[in-house]
């Protein structure tokens, strides 16, 4: 039986509007129809602030999350899991990629594995040497994930994501706020 998990936003913003830097194309909605499992998260600044007041300092995960969301203006995630390979094409990501252009956006990681069929790209948006946006496009044979985070992100906060949330440590670039040399 087709199982769809849809996490709906509490915010009143519409699906494609809001302070997000990039716009998700309408073609993603068609992918949602084909997907076995859909995760759709839209959290605007108000919702993040509201959620933050419910995050405790007592547990490690929640404390890390609280620190991280402090400077954020939005988190937008679309993740699709398909039953079979070939349910999506790279063209589906083309419209998003076309919005991630320099000098605003810089591609910092691009991993393509023919063997595993994995294709991951990480883009950062920088302003005055500080990260103000992060976009991850991750394509696997039966899974497509788009993560778009808007707001001030410190590299050490990103590194904090590792070691928490059940994820091993991540070494994310240089320490401090200056990513100019990265």
């Amino acid at each position: 039986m087709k199982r769809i998990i849809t996490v709906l936003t509490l915010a009143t913003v519409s699906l494609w509007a809001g302070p997000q830097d990039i716009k998700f194309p309408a073609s993603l909605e068609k992918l949602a129809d084909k997907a076995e499992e859909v995760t759709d998260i839209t959290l605007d600044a108000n919702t993040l602030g509201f959620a933050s007041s419910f995050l405790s300092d007592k547990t490690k995960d929640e404390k890390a999350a609280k620190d991280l969301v402090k400077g954020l203006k939005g988190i937008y995630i679309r993740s699709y899991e398909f039953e079979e390979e070939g349910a999506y094409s790279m063209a589906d990501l083309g419209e998003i990629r076309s919005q991630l252009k320099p000098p605003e956006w810089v591609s910092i990681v691009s991993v393509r594995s023919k063997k595993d069929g994995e294709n991951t790209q990480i883009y950062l948006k920088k302003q005055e040497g500080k990260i103000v946006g992060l976009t991850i496009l991750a394509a696997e044979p039966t899974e497509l994930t788009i993560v778009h985070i808007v707001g001030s992100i410190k590299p050490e906060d990103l590194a904090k994501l590792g070691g928490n949330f059940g994820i091993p440590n991540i070494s994310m670039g240089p320490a401090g706020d200056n990513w100019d040399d990265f």
Partner: protein
Amino acid sequence: MSSFDDELRGALRRVEPPPGFAERVLARVAAERARPGWRAHLRRVFGPAPLRLAAVAALALVIVAGVGYERHARGEEAKRQVLLALRITARQLQAAERGVQRLNARQREPKETIR
């Protein structure tokens, strides 16, 4: 005198009320005045003042608790979404890092020499 005059006089003659009519009217007026108003009616339905106050306080408490519960439920749901979003982000970053490490390891492998 004409018959018309007689008829007119007959029609306008004084008719005495039945005995006890005035007493009955006065008694009804007194009864109307004694009937309780809507406030007294409410008082009768909802009981004495302390009970009414308690009922209002209980109602206010239920409303406040309901609003508080609804807010708490929304907050917990928002928190769950934030944690899920960060978990997905962390998983993708880690997958990317693993991919980079794999490429680096491959590049470090000694190349076979062709003889």
